[in-house]
C-alpha cells in the first residue's frame, strides 16, 4: 500500500493530529460525557490506520516504534494493577479512589483511579486493533 500522494500525506498528518487530539479528549472526558477508554482507543487506532494507509508500514513503524503486543500486556497490567492496588489496603478488588485537588496552574482537577483503569483499556484497545491490522496487513 505504498503511495506517494503528497496531498494525502499532508492531509493525513493534519487529520491524524486532530483525531489523536479528539481521541485524547474523548478518553479523558469519558467519565463525564460520552467517551472513555474504548472509544478513545478505537479512534486513536483509527488514526494510526489512516497513517498506515497514507504511508507504508515501515514508515509508520519508524514514527511509532511500538511493540503492540507489549502494549496490550502493559494495558492489561495497568487495568489489573489499578484493581490490585486495592489488595494493599485490604479493600475489595477494583475499589476506586478519587479526590479533588486544586493545582496552581491547572485549576480544579479530579484525580480518579478509574482514569488509570481506563488508560489500561485504552492501551489494550489500541494494541489489539493494531495487532489485527498489522498481522493481516503484513501477511498480504
Amino acid at each position, binding site marked *: 500500500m505504498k503511495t506517494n500522494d503528497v496531498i494525502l500525506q499532508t492531509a493525513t498528518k493534519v487529520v491524524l493530529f486532530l483525531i489523536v487530539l479528539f481521541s485524547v479528549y474523548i478518553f479523558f472526558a469519558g467519565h463525564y460525557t460520552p467517551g472513555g477508554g474504548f472509544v478513545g482507543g478505537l479512534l486513536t487506532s483509527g488514526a494510526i490506520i489512516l497513517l498506515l494507509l497514507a504511508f507504508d508500514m515501515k514508515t509508520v513503524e519508524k514514527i511509532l516504534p511500538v511493540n503492540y*503486543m507489549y502494549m496490550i500486556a502493559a494495558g*492489561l497490567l495497568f487495568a489489573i494493577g489499578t484493581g490490585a492496588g486495592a489488595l494493599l489496603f485490604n479493600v*475489595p478488588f*477494583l475499589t476506586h479512589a478519587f479526590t479533588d485537588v486544586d493545582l496552581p496552574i491547572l485549576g480544579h482537577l479530579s484525580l480518579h483511579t478509574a482514569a488509570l483503569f481506563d488508560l489500561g483499556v485504552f492501551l489494550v484497545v489500541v494494541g489489539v486493533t493494531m495487532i489485527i491490522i498489522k498481522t493481516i496487513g503484513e501477511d498480504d
Partner: protein
Amino acid sequence: MINFLILPILIPLVTGVLLIFAAKHIMLQRLIAGLSALITVIVSVLLVKKVNNDGIQTLNLSNWDAPFGITLVSDMLSALLVLTTSIIALACVIYSFRGIDEDREKFYFYAAVNFLIVGVNGAFTTGDIFNLFVFFEVMLMSSYVLIVIGGTKIQLRESIKYLLVNVISSALFVIAVAYLYSVVGTLNMAHISVRINEISELGQPGIITVIAVLFLIVFGLKGAIFPLFFWLPGSYYAPPAPVLALFGALLTKVGVYSIARTYTLFFYQDGGLIQQLLTILAVISIILGIIGAIAYWDIKKIVIYNIIVAVGVILFGISAMTQDSLIGAIFYLIHDMNVKAALFLLVGIMAAITGTSDLRKISGLIKRYPGLGWTFFLAALSLAGIPPLSGFVGKLLIIKGGFESEHYWGAGIVLMSSLLVLFSIMKIFINGFWGTSRDYEGADKVSVKRMMAAPVILVAIAVFYGVGSEFVYPYISQAAETLANPGIYIDAVLKEY
C-alpha cells in the same frame, strides 16, 4: 484478607500477561507457568479451607454493595471446582513441557492456557449472571486460540465449527440475560433468586420457565448435552493432547456447573417440567454418548464420547434433585474432571509413542511401557466407577438419588452405562496395551517418563479421592447443601438485604 477468593482468577491472569512479555523465552515461560500454576493450587487449597472454616466467601468488587456491583461468591462448590481446575491446569502445564511442540509454546500457548483458567475459575466464582457471560467469553476466546494454535488443516477446519457454535451460544446467552433482566430487573444471581422467589408464591410464572429453557440451551451447548453436543467430537479431535485434556476436563463442566447453579438457584420452583426435560436430555446424552464411545476404534474418539456420557450422568444427578443425587453429582463432577484429564493425557502419550490414534494400529504397548499401561488401567477403572476408585461414590449416590426420586429407568441406565463405558475404555487396554508388541517409528524420541508425571499425579488423586471418600465427603456435602438450600447462598451474598 477479603480479596482472597479472587486470587485463583487473578494469579493466572497476571501470569498470562507476564507470559506475553516472555513469549520468546521458552524456559522462562515454562518456569513462570509452572510456578504460577503451583501457587494457584496452593491458594485454591487454602480457599477451600477458608470456605470450610468461615462459610461462604463473598467479595463485592469495587466495594459496591450487592446487588449493584459485581459480587464474587465462593461457596464450597465453587471453591472445590476452582481447586480441581487448578490441579488440572498444573498437570496440563507440566505435561506440556514435553508434550507440545516448541513452536506452539512460542506462540502464546501458556498465556492462552492461563487465560483459559482465568475464564474457568471466574465462571465458577462469579455471582453475577452477566459477569458469567464475560468469563464464558474469556474462556471461549482462550479455547479458540488453543484449538487453532498451530494452524494445521484439521485445526483450522474444526475451529470454524467450534467457533460458529459458540458464537451462537454466546448470542443466545446475551439474549437470555436480556430477557431475564427485563423480567426481574437485576443481574446479581442471589438477587435474581430472591426476586423470582417473591413472584413464585403462586407458582413460577411461565416466562421464567421459558427463560430457564433458554438458559438450558445456552449452557447445554457449552456442556454438550443432547441434542446440542454435535459440535464436540469433531472439535475436540483437532487440538494436541494437553489442550484436549483441558477442554475435555474443564469446558463442558463449566456448562454443567452453570446448569447446576442456575437450576438450583433460580429455576427450582417450576413444578417439574424443566426437571423432566433435563432428566430426559441427560438420559439420552448418556445413551448417545455410549453409542459413540463403543462405535470407534480411535483412542481419542473413545474418550471424547465418554465426555458426553459423563455430562449426562452428572445432569441426571442434578435433575433428580434429591440430596443424595446432588452430592453424587458433585462427587462425580469433580471425579470426572480429574480422570478425564488423566485419560486424555495418557491417550496423548500413546499417540505420541505410536504416531497414530487408530487403535487398530496400536498393540502390545504394555511390554515396553508397563507404567503407562497400569496408569491407564487404573484411570479406566476410575472412569467406569469401579470401587474403590474415584467414580464409584458419585455414581452410587446418583443412582440412589435416581431410585429415590423414582426415576428407575434413568437410574438403571446410569448404572448400566458403567458397563459400556468400561467396555469402550478397556477396548483400548485390551487392544492397545495387550497383544503383540510392535516397533514404532519415532517412539524413542518421546520422553514417556517425563510425560507420565502429570497423569500419574491425576490418577493418584483419583485413587485417593475414591478410597478417601470419607475425607472428601464433608466438603462435597457442604457444597451440595448450598445447592439444595439456595437460602444459604442468598444470605451470604445479600447480607443486609
